[in-house]
């Protein structure tokens, strides 16, 4: 979807339409797996609300095989497209140093040669048992970010195949019991466009008292910060920037 929309915004509607055509079977698949195209409503405290339907392997595998084949064909077709290259190569350059300084995350960071990926850096869920590559490009322009997203698409297909092969049997929900008030939890997961941080503070009555989501765009949408790091301009942003720096430091990166 990202690839399709990006192409739409740069006026390349051919690929926009093709990307959305290829994406559609995956939407049908999520409807088959979760009961809805977008609002899965699956995650609950303790697990997920429903198990995979009967015969899911035989339905998912042909779909991802087809997606892989079609994406390969599209990528093969567009890589030598001059108009696309002129539009993407050398434009919107974010240098490696700037990317580190303003703490961008996800494919934006990886397009500038910063190899961060929450799935690999501190594996959650089953990512520790799966073998995948953190896709990094060095040039930092729009082309690099596009390449990162394209390569990640193939990595995702690889991840799905491995997950299907290693899928364990067993219950889908764990017994949670009473959740005490005043408990805190922080998590960091890799969303398609970068890291998302969630913070929760539990209250009485088994309900959350406070819940804060720090979306990935907050670290990506800060032009101007890159030049000179003028902290007086926006002290609030500076604080966020510091907090993320601390997260990175805690991970043993600079």
């Amino acid at each position: 979807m990202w690839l399709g929309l990006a192409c739409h915004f740069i006026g390349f509607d051919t690929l926009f339409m093709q990307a959305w055509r290829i994406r559609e079977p995956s939407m049908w698949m999520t409807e088959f797996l979760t009961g809805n195209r977008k609002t899965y409503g699956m995650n609950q405290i303790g697990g997920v609300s429903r198990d995979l339907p009967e015969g899911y392997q035989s339905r998912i595998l042909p779909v991802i095989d087809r997606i892989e084949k079609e994406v390969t064909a599209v990528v093969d077709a567009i890589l030598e497209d001059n108009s696309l290259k002129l539009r993407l190569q050398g434009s919107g350059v974010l240098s490696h140093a700037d990317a580190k300084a303003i703490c961008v995350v996800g494919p934006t960071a990886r397009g500038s040669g910063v190899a961060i990926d929450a799935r690999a850096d501190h594996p959650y869920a089953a990512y520790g048992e799966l073998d995948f590559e953190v896709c990094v490009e060095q040039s930092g322009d729009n082309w690099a970010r596009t390449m990162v997203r394209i390569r990640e698409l193939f990595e995702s297909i690889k991840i799905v195949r491995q997950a299907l092969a290693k899928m364990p049997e067993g219950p889908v929900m764990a017994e949670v019991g009473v959740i005490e008030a005043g408990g805190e939890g922080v998590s960091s997961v890799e969303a398609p466009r970068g890291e998302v941080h969630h913070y929760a503070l539990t209250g009485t009555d088994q309900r959350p008292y406070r819940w804060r989501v720090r979306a990935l765009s907050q670290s990506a949408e800060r032009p101007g910060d890159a030049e000179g790091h003028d902290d007086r301009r926006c002290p609030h942003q500076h604080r966020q920037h510091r907090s993320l720096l601390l997260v990175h430091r805690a991970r043993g990166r600079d």
Partner: protein
Amino acid sequence: MFKHAVSELKEAILCLRAGQVTLGYPFEPHSPEPGFRGLLILDPDKCIGCGACANACPARLISVEDQDGHRTLDFVLARCTYCARCRDVCPQQALAMSEQFETATSSPEDLRITIKLRLVRCRECGAVVGTQRQLNRVLNELPSQLGLPPEKMDWLDLCLSCKRTRALREGVLTVEVRA
């Protein structure tokens, strides 16, 4: 230049090979996958008004109100996220997710379910005990589970506090008081 021409040719072939991919919907019916969660439906004959759904609903769209001898459950489905938690917790299986996904409407009342059930108040203090249907369910199930004759269940229309008072007074329940 040659590479660019090849690339454009490949793009053209891709588009032509794809052909028509749009579906006939809405001129043809489109049935969702089994297990699809569409618009919520309530079976008014099964609902006992216990409010388990209101407790489970993450969107807080089910309100329970006791007034004038009736308990009213109000579902404002315009806010529904289709998670089906209410259906999963309903002890009566009164709630179901239909296959209906065409919910666009100009009238908010189309996305609303209201059910009104008769309320039972404590015969001694007047506090709310529950709905008549909740009591009926207890009356149907408890005697066989406990091995009690139904006529012995005369404490059913007492609230929790009055039940305790009576149990203590009649010596059914003894409380050990430690010094």
